């Protein structure tokens, strides 16, 4: 048996922005193989990351992403340390760099971090030998969410190129949307951002010229293959940008009446957690066209693929 090898040319996953279409395809292809591990009727664990130490550093609340990473790490047989920011020395005034230096002394191989400051991961990457995985940094990027969204879409439609995807809601505060814009536009999907003018910064067209921006959800719906709803993030100040939740729902909620206007085979995505009755109704969130729980399921093999590809020596070390 000879192993055909792929050298993932990045040491870290700081965002989707640095990834080429080939990198994205490799990650999604590898996730398919890990999905088989997750679907086994018997032992859902492989020894691929045995003897590797993974540190989960979550400085922001997370249930879904943190659990998903932890399951992925366990399924790869990694050793895991969960660093809880609430009970850490950060409460005693320790800086992120000091925390990093102390962690470095434990010789971790991979660090999965969520932090409220955009760029915190790049800072950590400069001070540590470990590979850094961005599990969300402020409103900047959430690359594994975009990868699992793409995986879910590719699995359903068999492709990403040419798909018409509407991303709807609180665009301004969303790190999910930025990662998805890098990924979907790079893979040839046609993206339309939809939301009230206050929540869809026009300058996004400068970074992603191929996208469309609309404030008329009803007009956009009939053309879409997929509708990705975003959570209204009131903890990040969304309330200051809209007149009220009732009006927001009236124009931008995905509900059965709007689903009537969509293609029969349209699919609905949402990164969660859902504000039921605000951006999406329960009838749609639990309805036959939703892929929301598929997204959660697919998060594990996608994160397994990320950890697997980052756990080997990378391009610059290839002789």
């Amino acid at each position, binding site marked *: 048996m000879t*192993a055909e090898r792929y050298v993932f040319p990045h040491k870290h996953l700081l965002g989707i922005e640095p990834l080429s279409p080939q990198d994205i395809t490799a990650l999604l292809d590898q996730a398919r193989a890990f999905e088989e591990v997750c679907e086994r009727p*018997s032992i859902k664990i492989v020894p691929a990351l045995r003897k590797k130490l993974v540190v989960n550093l979550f400085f922001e609340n997370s249930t879904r992403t943190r659990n998903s990473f932890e399951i992925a790490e366990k399924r790869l047989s990694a050793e895991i340390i969960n660093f809880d920011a609430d009970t850490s020395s950060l409460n005693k005034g320790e800086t992120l760099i000091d925390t990093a230096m102390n962690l470095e002394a434990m010789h971790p191989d991979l660090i999965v971090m969520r932090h409220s400051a955009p760029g915190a991961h790049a800072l950590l990457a400069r001070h540590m030998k470990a590979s850094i995985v961005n599990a969300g940094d402020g409103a900047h990027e959430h690359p594994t969410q975009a990868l699992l969204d793409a995986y879910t879409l590719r699995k359903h439609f068999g492709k990403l190129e040419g798909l018409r995807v509407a991303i709807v809601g609180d665009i301004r505060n969303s790190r999910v949307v930025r990662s998805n814009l890098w990924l979907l536009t790079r893979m040839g999907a046609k993206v339309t951002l939809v939301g009230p003018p206050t929540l869809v910064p026009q300058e996004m067209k400068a970074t992603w010229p191929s996208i469309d921006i609309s404030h008329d959800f009803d007009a956009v719906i009939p053309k879409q293959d997929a509708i990705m709803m975003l959570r209204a993030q009131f903890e990040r100040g969304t309330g200051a940008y809209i007149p009220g939740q009732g009006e927001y729902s009236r124009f931008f909620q995905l509900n059965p009446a709007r689903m009537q206007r969509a293609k029969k085979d349209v699919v609905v995505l949402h990164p969660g957690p859902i504000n039921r009755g605000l951006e999406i109704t329960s009838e749609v969130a639990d309805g036959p066209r939703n892929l929301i729980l598929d997204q959660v399921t697919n998060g594990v093999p996608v994160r397994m693929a990320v950890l697997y590809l980052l756990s080997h020596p990378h391009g610059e070390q290839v002789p």
Partner: protein
Amino acid sequence: MPEAQGPCPMDPGQMDAALKRLAVDLMARLQPEEEVVLLGIRSRGLPLAERLAILLRAATGAQVPVGSLDITLYRDDLTEMVGSPIVRPTEIPFTLKERTVVLVDDVLYTGRTVRAALDALLDHGRPHRVMLLVLADRSGRELPIQADLAGLRVEIPPGHRVAVKLKEIDGEDSVTVEAC
């Protein structure tokens, strides 16, 4: 069993004959009540397993299930390799419980691939017994593993490899010995 002769120990006709002989030998090793499945070790073990299933069906009329096993994640050198070996899905669409599993591969060399395959296999279930069938069994074992059935046994010195080509993957059938 043909002896290795020069750089080309098996041409297409010899490979065909070897597989037919392997199918006959395999049937002779099985008890009448044994439920057998073939698991091809990716990548070249899979087409070999599929060919054997056709031969077994022609001989007995029985449909022998075929699955595939990717052992990449079970390699004992995985974490030391530069670059990530590409992982392909394992496909075992049947139960292994109470079955006789015949692992099929193209070449048996160090034994490490088979060790990994056994680990992978046992994560999928507990078969009644496991047999190993290879097209070519070459010298150079590093682990105490042996083939139950081999189409060819070859003594070749270190620094050489047995290269198997199959129509399904390479467009031709051949077994050659090459310097590495």
